[in-house]
């Protein structure tokens, strides 16, 4: 913790493109305010690099308020850093101290190939969603509101699962690089709702099949995913996915 501006040493993974080898480069940034976010600190670094005529560090970001799931980074060995239930964009520099060395790596998994520097390709998630992370409804005139009663408990449970922003930190933190938390959250959110029922069993079988095809590892119940999840998605979802899978397989 610090309230004075800091000087930091950054060890950052640089990689030209997907086929290059990549390695760590060390940079020093000065006059970093504790009120900055981690991404703003990287902005400062990139400004400096640009002024020096060097290639800035490529990193993913978008909304910078913890809802889009675009930011990533493994910061000192933990995806999204040390703070609980925050994405990298919500991580503030006050959690670091003057003179600290920070190691920054991309999310590492075969299914998340590095595009450049700290940017990884997470389209494997999109392909899993395309296999069943949706509901089918007839278009045309909308039905009356409140036509389908949904209990508060079911709505809450569905929302707890739907909170997943698909950032992929679960994969990054998993010792096996398993995508089980993401996939289970996306399956779970529909199990509580009437709209999710028609495709319920097809959904779990197809999404799990795609998950395996993408080259993610198997789940060994380490539970590290829940700890790093910026939304605190519970591994109870993974247990639910297994119940759904067994039920679907026996049908």
């Amino acid at each position, binding site marked *: 913790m610090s309230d004075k501006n800091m000087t930091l040493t950054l060890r950052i993974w640089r990689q030209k493109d997907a086929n290059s080898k990549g390695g760590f480069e060390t940079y020093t940034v000065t006059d970093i305010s504790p009120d900055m976010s981690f991404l703003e600190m990287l902005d400062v670094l990139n400004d400096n690099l640009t002024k020096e005529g060097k290639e800035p560090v490529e990193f993913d970001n978008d909304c910078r308020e913890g809802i889009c799931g675009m930011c990533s980074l493994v910061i000192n060995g*933990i995806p999204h850093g040390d703070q609980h239930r925050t994405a990298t964009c919500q991580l503030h520099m006050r959690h670091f101290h003057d003179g600290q060395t920070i190691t920054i790596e991309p999310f590492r998994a075969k299914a998340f190939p590095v595009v450049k520097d700290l940017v990884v390709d997470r389209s494997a998630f999109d392909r899993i969603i395309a296999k069943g992370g949706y509901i089918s409804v007839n278009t045309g005139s909308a039905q009356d509101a409140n036509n389908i009663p949904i209990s508060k408990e079911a709505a809450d449970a569905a929302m707890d699962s739907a909170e997943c922003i698909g950032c992929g930190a679960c994969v990054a933190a998993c010792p*096996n690089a398993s995508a089980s938390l993401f996939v289970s959250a996306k399956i779970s959110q529909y199990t509580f709702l009437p709209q999710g029922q028609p495709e319920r069993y097809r959904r779990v079988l197809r999404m799990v099949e795609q998950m395996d095809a993408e080259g993610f590892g*198997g789940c060994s119940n380490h539970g590290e995913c829940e700890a790093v999840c910026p939304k605190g998605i519970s591994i*109870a979802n993974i247990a639910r996915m297994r*119940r759904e899978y067994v039920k679907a397989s026996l049908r």
Partner: protein
Amino acid sequence: MGKKVIMALAGLFWFLFLLAHLLGNLTIFAGPDALNGYAHKLEGLKALVIAAELFLALALIFHAMYGIIVWWEKWQARPQKYAMYRSKGKPSYQTTSSRTMLYTGIVIFIFVVIHLLNFKFGRFETTTINGQEVRDLFVLVKEVFHQPGYLIFYEVVMILLGFHLRHAFWSAFQSLGWGNQKYTPMLYKLGVLLAIIIAAGFFTIPIYVYLKY
């Protein structure tokens, strides 16, 4: 994912076996005759014992096979390792136990083979209890546990077994889809407790035999 279900069921079956085996072994505290008498009674349930043995052997094969597959997939799934990796701590269940399941598993497998050769397929001696001739397992137990090398090996394996079981119990339920936010923390604690009881139980017997007889 079906693999995990079979792995969990096989593991739980072995877990039950360990509990039963420990309870049986505890008869040694009541003296040599109690142990030999218990073993003899078990021999009397021949059909049940053979069925259990076959089932255990089958369970062990599947459990080990799927364990190796998960481990292999894990190696495939992250070709480029992290330069720096840390566990974030709670609510993570990642521990030395969970990270070493394959290695403790291999040691336990080797132990099971040696253990069977030593006892089940060991030297056959007889003794008499109440005029009845029964197999004298105790003399074998005594002999084996008086070899310091074997004693140390046995005790080290029992500690590793404790580590294996610590992650195994709750993990099996999670794999079967029986975990939720309310029961998982309880299952985890119960698993740790049972792991300690089983490991400590098996740990004390050789020391007791070594010191007493």
